[in-house]
């Protein structure tokens, strides 16, 4: 069960318009995930140096060290707990953390989207998933 807390709720709260801006970011996360799924991680190269999002970059470095599952979730939860970000910036970090866990777990693109889209709000997630389903059916 989720222990909702007023401080966490205030930290994560943002407007519907702000949530809309998550979609391009989710696209970026899905692109990175797809590339890593196909090519793998080259631990010897500085593969993630071009990733400007420091939270996401650090998460990918942890994945490259073979971390996944409970331990990775524990570290990401600590990073979110101490995060100074608020509102949409904090929500982006939550989405990034979810994507990192999903990449470590080897989830396919469809599963990743199902995990990330709900962060845009239920209506937006349903619309995006339905659109994806229609495109798939075509």
């Amino acid at each position: 069960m989720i222990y909702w807390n007023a401080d966490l709720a205030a930290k994560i709260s943002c407007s519907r318009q702000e949530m809309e801006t998550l979609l391009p970011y989710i696209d970026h996360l899905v692109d990175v995930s797809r590339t890593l799924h196909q090519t793998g991680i080259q631990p010897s190269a500085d593969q993630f140096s071009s990733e400007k999002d420091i939270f996401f970059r650090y998460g990918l470095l942890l994945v490259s060290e073979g971390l996944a599952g409970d331990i990775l979730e524990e570290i990401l939860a600590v990073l979110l707990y101490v995060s100074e970000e608020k509102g949409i910036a904090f929500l982006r970090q939550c989405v990034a953390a979810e994507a990192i866990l999903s990449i470590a777990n080897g989830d396919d693109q469809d599963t990743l989207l199902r995990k990330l889209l709900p962060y845009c709000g239920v209506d937006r997630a349903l619309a995006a998933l339905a659109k994806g389903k229609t495109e798939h059916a075509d």
Partner: protein
Amino acid sequence: MLIERLGHMYALWGPSGKAPERNPRIDQTIQSVRRFIAAIQETSEDRKALFTQSQQSRRKAMKLAYLLLASESDAAAIRDAFLSSGLLSSGQRASKLDALIWLAGTEAASRGIHPYTIFLIMTAFFGPAAAETELRWLQEKAKATIPTLEEFIVPGDLTDTIEEALKEPARLQRTIRIAGMPLSASAFAGCSLYYIEKILVLIGPIGASILAEMIHSARQRLMSDEISTAQQAFLDLFAQEEGETEAPENQRIKGLEAFEEEEVFADPDLIRSTTKIVMLAEAKVLKATLSSMSDNEIASILRCMEAIAHERLLSLISPGRQKHVLTVIQKTGNTTNSRMLRDAQLFAQKLLASYAPKNLKPGESLSIPEEVRALISSLLSRE
């Protein structure tokens, strides 16, 4: 679930307060964390050494951490001790985060987590920028401390297929992460040094160092059978991580169909002889023979026998290897009678070698069933 865990942390500890910026006090804490993991590595289960560390520590949270580890407290007792110490109370906001760092580290150590991973958990409290700097430091330290392993091979399904698996590094990386370090290490414990070195470069230096340490430990703790079981479990996960969308069973059917269609070109007498050999030979000898053959060789020999023998041979190899063999068959074109004869004779030779005990004395005959012996002789004398 991530949000559930985060919500639980907020419910337990309240908001974290302002994240620490890099300052002399934080640098001092980071140095203490570095010493903490070094102490855990060096003292291991030496309680007296941990007590000494506790006595030498000046800060309360650190002192408590060493003391709790020395007294072999479990995770729940550690949480209770930190709570009742007052270090986590809201009145002491400045030191709250510091206390949480030591609580997390001590708790992780009590769970038997590797010191390098404990370090990553503890440094996460400094935020991603500082944590990344510390990860780079740990990477350099880990590079210098990867343990040297000795050659040790346990025949098993993974030992046979690791070369093929290494051709798909992305899939192998995913499998290692999903299997986790302990299972991966137990499975790789039976692989040759040559392959272990190739596996270790698939992971960053911290992960590689942890994995190498665990392989070393697994080789000391586990019996051959246990390593074989771990290999099978790892291979099952590897098979599940199939990148292609086609269902494994479809692949299996397609593969079988591919070579069953080609049987029309084969010499019926050769097919009959090879089939009989496979059906009559003992399972353990066949298994040993298959272990000494590559996927390509197994795919080739499957073309030289009837379907009933396919089932027997395929049942003696792992599901992951079955899939590889069937993929090879699908990709291979028609064969010729002379090629089939060569493949069948190579198989017969390998089967003979498997029947021969290592300590066979000159003049001593092999204990092969009479009918199998006659069939092998007949097959090897064919031109």
